[in-house]
Structure formats: C-alpha cells, structure tokens
C-alpha cells in the first residue's frame, strides 16, 4: 500500500484534478468577495474578476456609514456569551439525560426532539411578546437567552456522552466525588474535542443569526454584522464594494476559528455518527 501511494498513477492524477476543481469551486466565493472589496459597485454586479483600485474608497464609505468595529464587537460578544452559557447548560442537560436514565426524562427528551423540527419563524411572534413583556427588547440579552438552550446541541452532546464509560463515574463515586464534580473534573476534561465541536457549531449559528436579532435590536449601537449587511442590501444605491468588505469582516473570523480548531472539531464529531 505505502509503496503504491508514492507514485501518482494516471487514475489518481485524474482524481486529483477532479478534487482540485472541486476545491476551486468551494473556494471561489471567498476569492470573489476579496476581489469585490477592491471594485466599484458596478464591477461587482457585472461579475468582473479583476482586482480594482477602489478599496480605500469602499473602506472609507463603510466606516463613514457604519460603526464596523462596534458591530463586530457586538456580534462577537453575543456569540461568545451564548457559547459560554450554552455549552454548560446544554452539556449538563445532555449529561443528565444520558447518564441518569429514567423513564420520565426519556419522555422529556422525546418532546425536545419533536420540537427540533419547528421552524423559528413559526414562533417569532409569541417570542417577541415574551421578550417585550420581560422588558428585554433592544438588549443583547434578548438575543442571547433564547439561543442558549439548543435541542440540537443537547442531542449532539448526548450522542457523544454515550462514549463515556459509566464505570469511571462509578469509581469516582466510590471515591466520594459529588455528581457535579464528576461532571466538571472528570467528564469535561475527557471530552475536550466534543466540547470544541459543539462550541464552534454554536458560535457559528449565533454569529450568522439574522431573523431574531433583526426583530429585537432597536438601536444602532446594539447592531450585529449580519444586520448591517442586510441594511446595505436595502439601499436605493447598493454599495457592493462596501458590502464585500463587511462580508469579509464577518466571514474571516469564522474561517480562522475553524482552521485553528478543525482537528478538535472533526474529532468531536466522532461520537455523533456512531
């Protein structure tokens, strides 16, 4: 096997070309949006692929029109707080469901799974009333709280906790450890990769979330990046070059995050498909 791999046979060469083409297709939008930042709006809609000389102009426009740094910070803050709270709360729940089996909780879990298929827009109006009556409109708390609990993340973590041997927990109990301590000092350290995957996933969802923040944010200083992007799309004269700068600013942190943590991310997925 190892010997064969060294030489690139014709069949493999063709496969390689095929894969490289696929990679180009996957990467194309990223390349395009970087080029777009340098073009005037007209070149962007014409689909020109040449690098232009309008970057500074677009940059000035976007900074004059929006508080980009503030929006970035808002997006980041909301996402990181959601992940911080969400990972603990969902993990505890998943752990409770998986490692403390009971008929009652299994039923509760069944109900949770059922509601996984309810589309967000079906409950946006009652949610809005709820948030309004809690006097939370126009706060980041209003965006964070409803997305902290995620049925999908609980499901995902529960699948992964299946891999964690119950015997270890029992041994720890014999040593006199409390259940909360078992969770935080034995289970959590052992499942770093799982937590990394879930965190990245939650971060991604919240970073890109749009419909709900759109409903609850009522002032400029509370805005997030996706809201600013859609604001540009609604103008009479759409500044595509400036839009592309915002798109880059909102995409590249995600790319870096994913590239930096992809080993853990992929490892963490292991349990979910067993």
């Amino acid at each position, binding site marked *: *096997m190892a010997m064969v791999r060294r030489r690139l046979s014709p069949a*493999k060469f063709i*496969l390689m070309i095929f894969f490289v083409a*696929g*990679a180009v297709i*996957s*990467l194309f*939008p*990223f390349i395009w*949006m970087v080029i777009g930042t340098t073009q005037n709006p007209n070149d*962007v*809609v014409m*689909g020109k692929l040449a690098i232009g000389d309008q970057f500074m102009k677009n940059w000035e426009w976007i900074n004059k029109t929006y508080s980009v740094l503030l929006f970035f910070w808002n997006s980041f803050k909301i996402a990181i707080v959601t992940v911080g709270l969400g990972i603990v*709360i*969902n993990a*505890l*729940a998943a*752990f*409770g*469901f998986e*490692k*403390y089996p009971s008929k009652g909780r299994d039923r*509760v879990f069944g109900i949770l799974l*059922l*509601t*996984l*298929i*309810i*589309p967000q*827009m*079906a*409950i946006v*109006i*009652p*949610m809005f*009333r*709820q948030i309004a009556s809690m006097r939370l409109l126009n706060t980041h708390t209003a965006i964070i709280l*409803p997305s*902290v*609990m995620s049925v999908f993340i609980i499901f995902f973590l529960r699948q992964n906790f299946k891999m964690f041997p119950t015997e270890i927990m*029992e041994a720890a109990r014999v040593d006199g450890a409390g*259940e909360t301590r078992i969770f935080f000092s034995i289970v959590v350290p052992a499942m770093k990769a799982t937590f990394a995957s879930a965190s990245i996933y939650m971060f*991604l969802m919240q970073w*890109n979330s749009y419909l709900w923040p759109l409903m609850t944010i009522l002032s400029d200083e509370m805005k997030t990046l*996706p809201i600013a992007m859609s604001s540009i*799309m609604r103008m009479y004269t759409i500044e595509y070059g400036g*839009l*592309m700068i915002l*798109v880059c600013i*909102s*995409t590249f942190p*995600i*790319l870096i995050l*994913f590239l930096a943590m*992809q080993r853990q991310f*992929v490892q963490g*997925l*292991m349990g979910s*498909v*067993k």
Partner: protein
Amino acid sequence: MKKSSSYHRYLNRTGWRFITPAMILYIVFMLYPIMYSLFLVTQKWRGMSREFVGLGNFVRMAQDQIFWKALSHNFIFMLIQIPLMVFLAMILAVILNQGIRRFRGLFRTVYFLPCVTSLVAYSVLFRILLQSNGLLNNLMLNLHLIDTPIGWLNNPFWAKVTIILALTWRWTGYNMVFFLVGLQNIDSEIYEAAEVDGASKIRQFFNITLPLLIPVILFSMVTSTNGTMQLFDEPNILTNEGGPANATMTVALYIYRQAFVLNSDFGYASALSYVMVLVAGVLAFIQIKVLKERK
C-alpha cells in the same frame, strides 16, 4: 456498589437537577411560544382584530394551491437533492480516505468551507454567476456544451435545478466531514484482511465500507431532511422570493411571506407551520424506524 432505593432516588434527583436550567429556558422560549401559536391556529388575524375561525385555517389551506405547490417542491428537493448530496459526500470521503490520502486534511477543510460562508455573499455571488449572461453560461457556451443560455434563475425547471445545485454546493463538504469521521472509525485491519483475500476495491466498498457507513448515511439523511423541510434562504434570496412565479416556493418561505410580507396573518402562518411540523415529524419517524431496524 450501593444499589439502595435512596441511592436511586439520589441519582434520579441529580438527573433532574442537571436538566433543570435547560428546561427552564426551553419552557420560556420554546414551549410557551409553541402553545401560544396553538391558540393562533384558530384565529384569522388582521392587525388588532382577530376572529375565531376554528379549523377554518385548515380548510383554507386545503384549497390553497400555492401551499400544495410549495409542499410538492419541498418533496422534490428532498427526493433529488438529498440522495445526490449524500452519495457525493460519501464518494468524496471514500476517495479521500483511500484513493488520494495526500492533502486529505487540506481538501477536507476546503470542502467544508462553503457551509460557513455568509449567506449574503453566497446569494449575491450565485445570482451573478448564474444569470443568463453570467460566468457559468458563458463557460458552457464556449465549451459548446449548450447552444443557448440556460435560464438558471428565470426558467421554472432550471430554477429548481439551481436550488439543488446551490444546496449541494453548500452542504456536501459538511456531510463529507461526517463520512470521513465515520470512515476513520472503521478498523483498517478489515481492509487488509480483504486485500489478502483478493477482494477488489469495489467489492471492499460494497461489502465492508457501505454497511459500516449506514449510521452516517442515516445521520446525514435525517439532518438534511429536516433542513430541506425548513428550506428558506435559497429560494428567498437566490431565486427571488420563490420565483419565477412560485416555481421554487417552499413551505417555510410561504409561511414567512404569509406572516411577515403579504398578509400579517399569523393564524394562517401558524396553521401552515403545524402542518409542516407534522410532515417533518412523520418523515423523521419513518427514518428512525428504518435506523432501528438496521441496527
């Protein structure tokens, strides 16, 4: 090991304790809104005025051809796009895992990236690429693959193809990563044994790889089915609000339009949502049944 009933009660209490924070959030931000929308289903809603219509919204739905059209589109996308994508994701993963291991990590990363792209960039780009005089048509014309430009965005048939292609572009890599993980879970000794027995690569695939990948296939299928049932972004932004002339309208998009664009009729929108959830629930149930049988 203590097995006393008080110990069991202790464990049981701990279990409830662990799930409590999540359940509080669930009740406040999921269950209550859902219950409230159950009430909405019985209302015809116009601004401040609400009128009790009982099951009237469901009667209206039965006669609403656009709803049925939208539902049929969901099924078309589900039946064509999901098998296509899952198959593609699996093949790519198998080749990456066995055929060309060189640059595997790199390809995995690159193929995964489309699903993290910002929706705005993705939709603007695809619209520009796919317009009649766009890059894709020009490329195909130059290669003499087609004689006349294809109406990717304004022909009812090709617009559906566009949605399928866009979804495939965005999610194949994502699913491929799951397959790669699944493949890594397979012991390489099995293949070595098969190699010794003289089994061809294709036989190895059908006899070893495929059966062991069934959990991954089902995972992909179930999550994608749920995603396709809720399909909203692509028809809304890419093909212009379900166009041309409702040719790519989906149920989720129709709900959104009923609630927030056309009528502000939250009662009818809720009724549509319940039907959608029902359909998705039945599909999930079937898939889980299949999963259990396989195991």
